[in-house]
C-alpha cells in the first residue's frame, strides 16, 4: 500500500471533475477550485443488457480490441479514394444483373418499402424498359420476378432511395491504398428525381440523357484529365464551407473547375457540352455522389477486422436504419428509421416528410458530414442556429470516435482533424448518437425533396450491435 499518489494530491492544487449533481461543481467553483462538470447520463440509457455488455468487454476480451480498432482507424486514415472513371452498372458493379435492383440501406422487401423507395424502383423498371407504365412497374416489382438487394452488398452506395439498375452509369471510385472499389450513380439534381421516388416521364428522360450524353462526356473528360484524387478534394471542401453531406457547393464547384477545361475540349457538339456544364452548375449536390463512394471505399477497407468495434456501415432504407461493425462482418443491426428534425422548403412541413432514407450517412461513417458540422457555418441553422452550436456538434462526436482525421481538418477548430472511426462501445456508453445530416424526401413517391435537417438514429441498433459484439468477443 503506497500513499505517495495521495501526498502528491495534497501538494498540488485540487482540480476536479464532477459527475452528477451540478451544485457540487458550483460549490467548488465558488470556493475557487477549478472544476469541469460532466454532463453525465446513464450509460446505454440505463439499458441493463447493453451495460452488461460494456462491462463484459471491459472485464476482458478474447482479442485485443484496442489493437483491432487501431488497425481499423489506420486503414480508414490511409485510404486513398480516387475517381477512376464511369461505367455501366451491369459491367462494373459486382453481382449486378438485369433482374436485380439495388437500393439504399439494409435489405428490405418490397412489401416493407416506403413510398419514395417504391416510386424509385418503379421508375427504375420503366427506365430499364421492363415496364411501360407505373402500374405495370408496380405489378412487376411486387411479382417476385425482380430481385432487390442492398447497395452495400455490391460495394455500392446510393443517395435517398439509392436505386441502381443494370443500365445506369456509375462513378467508379477506387481506394488506391487497398485496391477496393465503390460505386455510385450520378446525381440527378433537385426537384422531381428518381432518388426521391419520382418516376414521371421527365425523370426517365433525364436518366436516359444522363446515360447517353452526361456520362460519356464526363467519362471522356475524366479520361483526358486523369483520375481525381478525392481525398485532397474533400480536404479542400471542408476548408471552403462544405461539411461533405448536406452542403456540397464547394465540392461541386471544384469538380466543375477540374473537369470544365477538358469538357470544352471534347470533340462533341457545343450544345451538348453546354448542357452538361449547365447541368453541373445547376446542381449543388452533384459532388455528393462522388463523396459517397469515396467514403464507402474508405470504410470498406476497415471492414472485417477481427475484434474491431468500429462502425463501418450506417445506412437507411426509409423503413429501417442499419449499421454494421468491422468485427462482425455481414451482420446488420437495425432499428426503425427516424423522423428527421428539419427545416422545410416553402409549402412543406413535417406532415409531408418520409422517414430517414439513404446511404449518404456513409459520409458520417467516414468522419465527415454531421461530424464535420463545425466546418460549415452556412448551414448552422440545422443544428441550433449559431456557429457555436455547429462546433459543439463536432466536439461531441469526438466522444464517440477512435481518432482524429489527419487529412480532413476543420479551420474553426484550429485545423483539428474531424472525429473519425465511430466506436460502437463509446456510442452506447456515452449515449451520444452519431450526428447525421440528411435531406428529407416527400413521403409520397414522385414529389422530391421537401427539406433537410438532422436525424437521430435508433439507439437499439447500436445496443444490439454492442451486445452481439460482446457475445462474440468478451471472455
Amino acid at each position, binding site marked *: *500500500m*503506497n*500513499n*505517495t*499518489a*495521495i*501526498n502528491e*494530491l*495534497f501538494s*498540488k*492544487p*485540487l*482540480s*476536479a*471533475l*464532477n*459527475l*452528477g*449533481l451540478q*451544485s*457540487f*461543481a458550483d*460549490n*467548488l467553483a*465558488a*470556493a*475557487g*477550485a*477549478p472544476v*469541469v*462538470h*460532466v*454532463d*453525465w447520463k446513464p*450509460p446505454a440509457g440505463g439499458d441493463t443488457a447493453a451495460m452488461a455488455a460494456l*462491462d463484459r468487454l471491459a472485464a476482458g476480451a478474447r482479442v485485443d480490441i484496442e489493437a483491432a480498432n487501431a488497425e481499423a482507424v489506420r486503414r480508414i486514415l490511409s485510404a486513398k479514394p480516387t475517381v477512376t472513371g464511369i461505367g455501366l452498372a451491369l459491367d462494373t458493379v459486382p453481382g449486378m444483373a438485369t433482374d436485380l435492383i439495388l437500393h439504399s440501406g439494409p435489405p428490405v422487401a418490397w412489401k416493407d418499402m416506403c413510398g419514395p423507395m417504391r416510386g424509385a424502383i418503379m421508375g427504375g423498371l420503366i427506365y430499364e424498359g421492363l415496364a411501360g407504365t407505373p402500374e405495370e412497374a408496380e405489378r412487376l416489382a411486387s411479382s417476385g420476378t425482380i430481385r432487390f438487394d442492398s447497395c452495400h452488398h455490391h460495394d455500392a452506395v446510393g443517395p435517398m432511395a439509392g436505386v441502381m439498375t443494370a443500365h445506369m452509369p456509375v462513378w467508379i471510385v477506387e481506394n488506391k491504398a487497398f485496391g477496393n472499389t465503390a460505386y455510385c450513380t450520378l446525381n440527378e439534381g433537385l426537384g422531381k428525381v428518381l432518388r426521391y421516388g419520382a418516376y414521371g416521364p421527365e425523370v426517365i428522360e433525364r436518366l436516359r440523357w444522363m446515360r447517353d450524353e452526361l456520362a460519356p462526356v464526363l467519362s471522356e473528360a475524366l479520361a483526358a484529365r486523369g483520375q481525381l484524387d478525392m481525398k485532397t478534394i474533400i480536404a479542400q471542401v471542408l476548408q471552403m464551407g462544405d461539411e461533405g453531406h448536406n452542403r456540397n457547393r464547394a465540392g461541386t464547384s471544384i469538380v466543375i473547375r477540374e473537369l470544365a477545361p477538358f469538357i470544352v475540349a471534347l470533340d462533341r457538339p457545343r450544345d451538348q457540352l453546354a448542357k452538361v456544364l449547365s447541368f453541373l452548375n445547376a446542381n449543388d449536390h452533384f459532388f455528393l455522389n462522388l463523396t459517397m463512394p469515396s467514403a464507402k471505399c474508405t470504410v470498406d477497407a476497415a471492414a472485417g477486422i477481427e475484434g474491431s468495434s468500429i462502425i463501418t456501415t450506417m445506412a437507411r432504407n426509409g423503413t429501417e436504419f442499419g449499421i454494421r461493425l468491422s468485427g462482425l462482418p455481414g451482420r446488420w443491426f437495425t432499428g426503425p428509421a427516424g423522423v428527421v428534425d428539419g*427545416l*422545410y*422548403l*416553402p*409549402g412543406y*412541413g413535417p406532415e409531408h416528410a418520409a422517414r430517414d432514407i439513404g446511404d449518404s450517412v456513409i459520409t458520417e461513417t467516414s468522419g465527415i458530414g454531421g461530424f464535420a458540422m463545425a466546418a460549415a457555418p*452556412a*448551414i*448552422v*441553422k440545422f443544428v*441550433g*442556429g*449559431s*456557429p*457555436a*452550436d455547429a*462546433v*459543439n456538434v463536432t466536439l*461531441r462526436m469526438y*466522444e464517440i470516435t477512435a481518432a482524429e482525421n489527419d487529412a480532413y481538418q476543420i479551420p474553426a477548430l484550429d485545423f483539428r482533424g474531424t472525429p473519425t472511426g465511430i466506436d460502437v462501445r463509446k456510442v452506447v456508453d*456515452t449515449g*451520444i448518437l452519431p450526428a447525421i445530416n440528411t435531406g428529407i424526401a416527400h413521403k409520397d413517391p414522385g414529389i422530391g425533396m421537401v*427539406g*433537410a435537417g438532422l436525424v437521430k438514429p435508433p439507439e437499439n441498433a447500436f445496443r444490439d450491435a454492442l451486445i452481439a459484439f460482446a457475445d462474440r468477443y468478451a471472455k
Partner: protein
Amino acid sequence: MKRLTVRKDTYFDSVFLMLATRGIKALPGVAEAVVAMATPMNVDLLAGLGFPKEELAGLSPNDLVVAIDADTDAVLDDATTAAFDALKRKSGTGAAAGNRTAASLASGLALAPDANLVLISVPGTYAAREARKALDAGMHVMLFSDNVSLDDEVALKTLASSKGLLMMGPDCGTAIINGKPLCFANAVRRGNVGIVAASGTGLQEVSCLLDRFGSGVSQAIGTGGRDLKNAAVGGRTSLLAIRALAADPATSVIALVSKPPAPDVAKTVLDALRSAGKPAVAFFLGMPPAADEERIAYASDLEEAALLASLLAGGADGPMQARALMLEDSGNDHYNKPRPSRIDELAADEARRLSPAQRYLRGLYTGGTLADEALFLAHAQLGGVRSNNQTDPAWLMADPFRSEGHAIVDLGDDAFTSGKPHPMIDPAARAERIVQEGADGETAVILLDLVLGYGSHPDPAGACAPAIRAARAAATSRGGYLPVVASVTGTPADPQGYSAQVAVLEAEGVVVMPSNVRAARLAIAIAKLAQGGRA
C-alpha cells in the same frame, strides 16, 4: 386574407428562411406562411397558394418575399414583423463558448488534463462503474453516491489501494481536500490537523469546532460509513489516509472519527495511528473511550475530539498535557464553555416554566452523526430514548413519523428521504416536525442541529424559525413553555454565516449552544428536570 411583403435585393440563405417560415407558421391565426427568396419555383408556389400574380410579377431571385395568409390584419401585421425580426436576429442563445462542461469522464479529462480528483454523485446503480473508470484513469475519487454494494466497495477500494489512490466513499458526504470543500463541507480555516472520518456530520462538527478553537484543517478525508465498520472493507481507505497524513508535512495531528470499527479493523487502524509518528485523537461514536496512550488520545465526544486535536496541534506535548489544559481550573476556559455548572443554571431557567404534562426530550436532527451523538448520551442519562437510529430493537421507533416518550429522530434517514431531498438541503420536513412536536403537550424540550456549509440550505435557521415560533406559541397557549435548544455546525466563513444563523435562532428564543454535545447536555438536563416531578 393574404399579404405579400417584398424586400428587394435582400438575400438570405435558404436555411434561415426555412427557420423563419417555421416560426411564422406556428403563430396563432396564421393559416399559411412562406418566407423565401423569389425564385421562379417559389413564385409559382406562391401563385399556386393564391397570392396575387400581379404582385409576384417582376420579382427576382434576389428579392425576399414574406407571404402570409391569416384571419385578420392584426395577425398579418404581427406575423410580418415577426418574420423580419426572425431574419434580423442573430442568435445569442447558442451554446456559450469556453464553458467548462464535458459530455463524458473521458472528455472531461481531456478538457482538464491537470484534474486529480473525480467527484461522483450519480445514482448508485451506475456509481461503481464511473468510480472504476476514474480510478483506472489514475484519478482520486470521492464517491458521494449511496446504494453501492459491499462487493463493489471492496473491489473499488482494493483497486484504489493497489494504485495508491484515495477512494472516499461510497456514501461519503463530506471532505476537505487542499482547503476545498467537497460536497457538504464547511469553509474551515486551513491548519495542521488532518481528519479521517467515516461519518459526514461528524467530520463537519469536528472541522468547524477546530476552526472555532483557532486551529485549522490540513486535509479532511471522508471514508464512507462502512470503511471501518465492515470487516470486508477492512478500513482500506482509512489506513491509506492515515499513512498519507502521517507523511504529509502540513499535518501535525491526526484525528480519527468513526462509529465503532469491527474488532479486527480497530486493531489495524489503531496500529496505523500508533505508527504514524504524530499525536492522534480517536473518537469512536457509541463506544466508551479507551484509556489514552502515549500518542493517542481517546475522546468521548466530537467536541472533545476537536478540543484535544486543537490543543495537540497548538503544541501540547501528548494527550496527558492536552487533558491538563482542558481542566476547569486550567485557565483555558475558552475551550470549555459553557461549563457544566452554567448548563445546569440554563436548564433550571428554561425548565422553570414547564407545565406538569411536559415530560419528554424531542431531538429533531438533520445530521446523522450528530443525532447519534445526542442519542447515546441521552439514552444513557434519561433511561431510554427512542430513535429511528437505535441499534437496540426495543428502543427503535415503531413509527419514525410520530414521537413517543423521549425521542431523537434522524430526519436524514431513508424513511424520510425516499423521493425527497435530504433535510440539510430542504429543511421543510423538519419544520413540519417541529410544529408537530410543539402540538404534543408532552414535549418538554426540542433539540435541534443546524448544519451550515457548502451544499446545505442557504438559510436553515430562517427555514425553521416560523415553525419554532408556532411550536412555542402552542405550548404557551396551553399554559406551558417550550424550551428549544440548538447547536449550529458552521463557521463564520460559511456561505450562510455562523453568527447570522445564531442570531436568527436567538431571536426566536432558542438557546444556542456552541457544540452539539453541549446542546444535548442542556436538553437532557431540561428533560431531567421535567421528569423530576415538579409539584
